[in-house]
């Protein structure tokens, strides 16, 4: 279950180690929050690679996109550089305390990380050209995704159950477009 107040109050850190409540990210606009695992996670490399081409669509739909890892703030720069995110419409934060992950109802499990399904995900990622990297955070924590409107209402929630499980970018874009339509006055002739 997602605990909206706890989620909004959970503090995430930027690359300089400055904390801010997660809720401040959706104060002014809808927010797509993609919770990663640790910054060296091969499954997260796949997630971000698939999400990157959709970032412009999310921004066009009026949503802010945020990635939250769980390593140290010092690992953010390397992650951003590795994925070429510096000039993209996305912000990267981290939550080493895992408070935001707990508030988002995400899974922390050894089986999800080392089980059979995770092993298959791992091999698939390597076969697709991704490279295993050093662990940079909590290795057992799984990821997920949320789409939150400007009022803090969670309209999309995905809980990853294994290493390679991530929300479909199309589902995130759908949720963001749905929120964009919701902001349009019902009396607009273009709302068909």
């Amino acid at each position, binding site marked *: 279950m997602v605990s909206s107040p706890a989620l909004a109050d959970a503090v995430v850190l930027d690359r300089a180690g400055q904390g801010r409540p997660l809720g401040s990210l959706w104060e002014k606009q809808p927010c797509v929050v993609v919770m990663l695992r640790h910054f060296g996670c091969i499954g997260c490399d796949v997630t971000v690679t698939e999400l990157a081409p959709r970032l412009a*669509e999310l921004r066009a739909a009026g949503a802010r996109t945020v990635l939250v890892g769980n390593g140290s703030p010092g690992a953010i720069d390397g992650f951003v550089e590795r994925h070429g995110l510096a000039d993209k419409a996305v912000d990267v934060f981290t939550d080493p305390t895992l408070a935001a992950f707990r508030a988002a109802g995400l899974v922390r499990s050894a089986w999800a990380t080392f089980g059979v399904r995770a092993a298959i995900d791992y091999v698939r990622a390597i076969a697709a050209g991704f490279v295993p990297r050093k662990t940079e955070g909590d290795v057992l924590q799984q990821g997920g995704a949320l789409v939150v409107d400007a009022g803090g209402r969670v309209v999309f929630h995905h809980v990853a159950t294994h290493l390679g499980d991530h929300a479909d970018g199309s589902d995130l874009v759908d949720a963001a477009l749905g929120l964009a339509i919701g902001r349009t006055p019902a009396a607009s002739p*273009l709302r068909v």
Partner: protein
Amino acid sequence: MAYLLHAANVLYLLSYLVKDILWLRLLTVVAGVLLMTWALLQPQPLWASVAWNALFLAINLYQSWLLILERRPVRLSERETLLYRLAFRTLTPREFVKLLALGRWEEAAAETRIVERARALDRLMVIASGRTAVKVADRVVELGEGRFVGEMSFITGEAPTADVVAIDAIRYVSWPKVELTKFLAQHPPLRAAWQAVLGADLVSKLRAA
């Protein structure tokens, strides 16, 4: 007879050297035929080898056929080409053809109401030629060629809040929502490409609203 065995293995070797999966399969098919022939021509035919190679042959032939179908050139009619240029440039022609196969070309005379306000809309349309008027109370907005009608209802599942009436005789393609949703769910890359097209149209409308 041993030359058949050697020829088959040379072909297997070649198949391992090519990068194109279709060529790999075709070389394997020929190698398999040679190997089966060799096995059959033995004083005591090697039936187990023949059976396994027949199975491999069938699988490779079927997969090769699918690959050939996928690689066939796409030929669009004039009206399809026009619609492709108007609204679907970001899709590949093959993706576009797949989507068109699911939709239906329709025509409507001037003054025909193609969308009724507050009535559930079970289809999504794109205008190929002509103009439509979107009406809410006294406000009217014109939508022309290449614009979508019903995409907000498609995304939200809610009934439209405006009437859409043909200004001229129009031609459009309509997709049944349920079938389209199911089809896109089965084809994730196409869903992403389709969503980019629809999203761009939608965002431009929202900005104008």
